[in-house]
């Protein structure tokens, strides 16, 4: 039986990859269109929050 802490680690790896992807795309987008930075930031935070909800849900259900 794999202990839940390993599952937590897996979730963090998955969440980290996802957040990294969001962050890198947002940075590229802001670099291309600095005037749209605030809109991109808001969208980035929303997607980040959705991802975070998923990851935290998994962490809590796993516990």
């Amino acid at each position: 039986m794999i202990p839940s802490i390993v599952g937590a680690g897996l979730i963090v790896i998955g969440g980290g990859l996802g957040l990294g992807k969001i962050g890198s795309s947002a940075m590229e987008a802001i670099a291309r269109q600095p005037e749209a930075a605030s809109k991109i930031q808001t969208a980035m935070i929303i997607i980040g929050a959705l991802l975070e909800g998923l990851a935290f849900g998994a962490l809590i259900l796993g516990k």
Partner: protein
Amino acid sequence: MSQNMVSLKRTLKYFAVILLSVAPFLSKAEQAHDASAAAPTESEKISAHIDHHLQDDYYFTFFADEEADVKYGFSLPVILIDNGLKVFMASEFDYGKKTVEKDGQFYALSHGKIYKTDAAGTLSYDDHHHITNAKPLDFSITKNVVGLLLTAVILFVLFIGLAKTYKKGANNLPKGAGRALEPLVLFVRDEMAIPNIGLSKYKQFMPYLLSIFFLILVLNLIGLTPLGFNVTGNISVTLCLALFTFFIIQFKANKDYWKHIFWMPGVPVPMKIVLAPIEVLGMFTKPFSLMLRLFANITAGHSVVMGLIAIVYLFKTDLTVGGSVGVSMILTLFIMFIELLVAFLQAFIFTMMSSLFIGMAVQDHHDEDHH
């Protein structure tokens, strides 16, 4: 893109190798943990303390002297509805050591919950070590309720001045605390309500959005004070907040919202039958994720802060007292700044997502062909 995939594959390969190489030790570590379960070690005591902090309580404890077994603070009133109203102070429980008798019914306190019991205070357990005794209907003024009431008072004091200025005239400059709050009110209006709900409909939702924004913000911030509140880190509180958003969406939604859930336009009929249950599920997952996100963020933040403070006790022998206090203080300070950011960010995200979901439900769809 293919380069990305290659590096991702390589990462996963390394990960699998590491996982397989440590797997044999994982079961051993668990056995060792079972053997030491007899006497609580320092770290077990600390995690019990953190768990206790994260839960609601009938006492308001500022600090405790464990060696002398004295807790400094005060107990809060217990209000039970169980064949009539029963009000008494939680100090009568003496931290769960005594049972309390009211009108012939005995009550016992165990792990922060009140159970009906007999004169001896016997509690029966099921196979999973959960207490099976009946619970009375509990309307007590607990620690979280005190936190909520305190927040209500703070918000009232802060906002009454701001509201009065606008009553005199729309162009008045607010005085005192209102001057600092006005930008935040405008932030909620201009960054969340108007872009997400739309200029024609945002006004009726502003009272709700402002209320949840400032309620969550102040609750998060008083959670960072040493008073020991953990209100937004309680899943019942966040459930209630998410339910408000849920009901506002359901009652304010227009016919397009329901059409898009049960019979979405522009999709083939077999697909509609497949998608409808998913959309119905989506109705509930939106507030569910709101609930879980706020709860998990604040709980995680409190656990991390308390865990870092616990470094003082855990590394006392390795780092000397001064060293462990220094390391703990630097790390705690760092995390506390992040927690200040999180306190604001979670209030922002909860309000933002609420306004987004409300906006999705009340929006007019003029362009049906685009679906």
